[in-house]
């Protein structure tokens, strides 16, 4: 590890462990003022400085930068100065609790003078981010920002291994063209439909098997991939219409809206009527609005004469009425 110290002396470095910073000063040198290298504790970089004139003064302050300005530390800490020479002496400060912004916020006048080698310790009992506008200070320990993402990543890894390596699976899903293994508990916590299937003592629970004839092996494994947090964009894209149907059927709301958003993204001449039909079937207001606007506001319906005739012959009356109103709306605004 490099010391990062300035050229002045090799003993400017403050060693840190846990919440303790320790600065060993070998020789004070000819000047009356020494400042340590910056050292990191919590989210801030700190400095210690010692000034020796008639009396000895120790200061502690954060590096003057944007962070210290916008999120100033509220520190509860104590300092200690001691020498290691024979006849060991030691001065301990009271516990202070202060917002530290600059070098004048905390000044400790040490009772006695130290010469030769001595050590300055700073021990933080607690560190918080002081609120600038008078609110509650927010603690930085324990560091939840680090813990939460770590725990999420780890549980995702577990889940996807449970699926890919079939760890203790307890249910078979029979799709139209092959079987998959999964976990009742995982399925039940994703979908109230699966939950009720394994709650009642009907066939699925007795045989630990679900016959999902209306899905293919590949689209069902994309569904499981989503449920177990292990699906890539390509697979999602390829199966999104099937995933939409499954999300609607099994009441998985976030997957449904994610499919809808994706289907809005690539509306085009080749698919707009199909998309409109899907939007109507699954009651997707956003997708329906986008299709209607593509057709009528942007006038793309003129490029679809043949298809629209066939569409009108087959489409549901309720949907036709809605389309008709949409056309009237567009006419009105012209």
């Amino acid at each position, binding site marked *: 590890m490099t010391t990062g110290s300035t050229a002045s002396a090799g003993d400017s470095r403050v060693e840190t462990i846990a919440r303790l910073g320790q600065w060993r000063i070998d020789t004070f040198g000819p000047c009356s003022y020494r400042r340590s290298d910056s050292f990191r504790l919590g989210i801030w970089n700190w400095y210690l400085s010692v000034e020796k004139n008639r009396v000895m003064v120790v200061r502690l302050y954060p590096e003057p930068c944007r962070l210290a300005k916008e999120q100033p530390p509220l520190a509860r800490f104590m300092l200690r100065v001691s020498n290691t020479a024979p006849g060991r002496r030691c001065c301990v400060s009271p516990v202070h609790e202060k917002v530290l912004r600059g070098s004048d916020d905390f000044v400790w006048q040490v009772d006695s003078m130290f010469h030769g080698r001595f050590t300055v310790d700073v021990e933080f009992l607690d560190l918080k981010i002081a609120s600038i506008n008078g609110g509650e200070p927010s603690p930085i320990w324990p560091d939840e920002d680090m813990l939460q993402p770590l725990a999420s990543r780890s549980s995702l890894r577990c889940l996807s291994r449970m699926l890919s390596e079939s760890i203790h699976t307890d249910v078979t899903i029979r799709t139209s063209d092959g079987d998959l293994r999964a976990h009742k508990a995982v399925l039940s916590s994703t979908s109230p439909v699966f939950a009720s*299937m394994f709650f009642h003592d*009907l066939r699925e629970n007795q045989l630990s098997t679900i*016959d*999902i004839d209306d899905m293919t092996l590949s689209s069902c494994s994309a569904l499981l991939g989503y449920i177990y947090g292990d699906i890539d964009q390509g697979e999602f894209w390829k199966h999104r219409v099937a995933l939409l149907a499954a999300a609607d*059927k099994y009441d998985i709301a976030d997957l449904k809206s994610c499919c809808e958003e994706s289907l809005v993204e690539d509306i085009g001449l080749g698919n707009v009527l199909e998309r409109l039909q899907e939007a109507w079937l699954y009651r997707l207001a956003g997708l329906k609005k986008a299709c209607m606007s593509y057709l009528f506001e942007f006038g793309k319906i003129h490029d679809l004469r*043949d298809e629209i005739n066939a569409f009108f012959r*087959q489409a*549901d009356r*309720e949907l036709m009425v809605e389309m008709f109103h949409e056309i009237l709306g567009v006419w009105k605004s012209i």
Partner: protein
Amino acid sequence: MSNQRKILKLSRIEVEPNYADRTWQIIEHGINQIFNHNDRELSMEELYRAAYNMVLHRFGEMQYNGLVVTVTRHLEEMRKSIESAEGSFLDELNRKWTDYTESMQKIRDILMYMDRSYVPTHHKTPIKEVGLNLWRDHIIHSAKIQTLLVDSLLEEIHRERMGEVINHGLMRNVIKMLTELGVYQEVLESINAFEDVIINSFKYLAL
């Protein structure tokens, strides 16, 4: 732009003749099996899928009305069996009520999509409430059952006062049922010994 755009094809379901009737028959058969305690072979996925597709393709109303008719038919059978119960009336009423609520829970789960989609968009009464209303109208409001119910409750209270040991669990279940149905007050008002019963039945509720 693709040169050969495909003409939209509607799904198989919509062109199938009698689709709705045949699907409802599957669901109705399932409901009958559940009420007849013959449901261990039933596939929840299959029934749910049938019910889901029916509502998805805008046959929600047919499903909703069909449900009311089918449940009513079973309630009529239950009514007869409760009215002609040999042995303890309260026992039989409680047994049928427990059966009924368990069956309705399964049926509600099979028809979950109707509750989620058709019911709110058409401002209908949710299935759970429909189930309670039908039980109240066909069982509790039957004149014969109402008389039997009041008499039996009074008799139990009287027996306990005479120092006999009665089935407190049963009393509690019956009173809980009446509370859930919102007819507790109604039943009480048809009793002359009004205060007596209130005092005593609160005791059972607190047990």
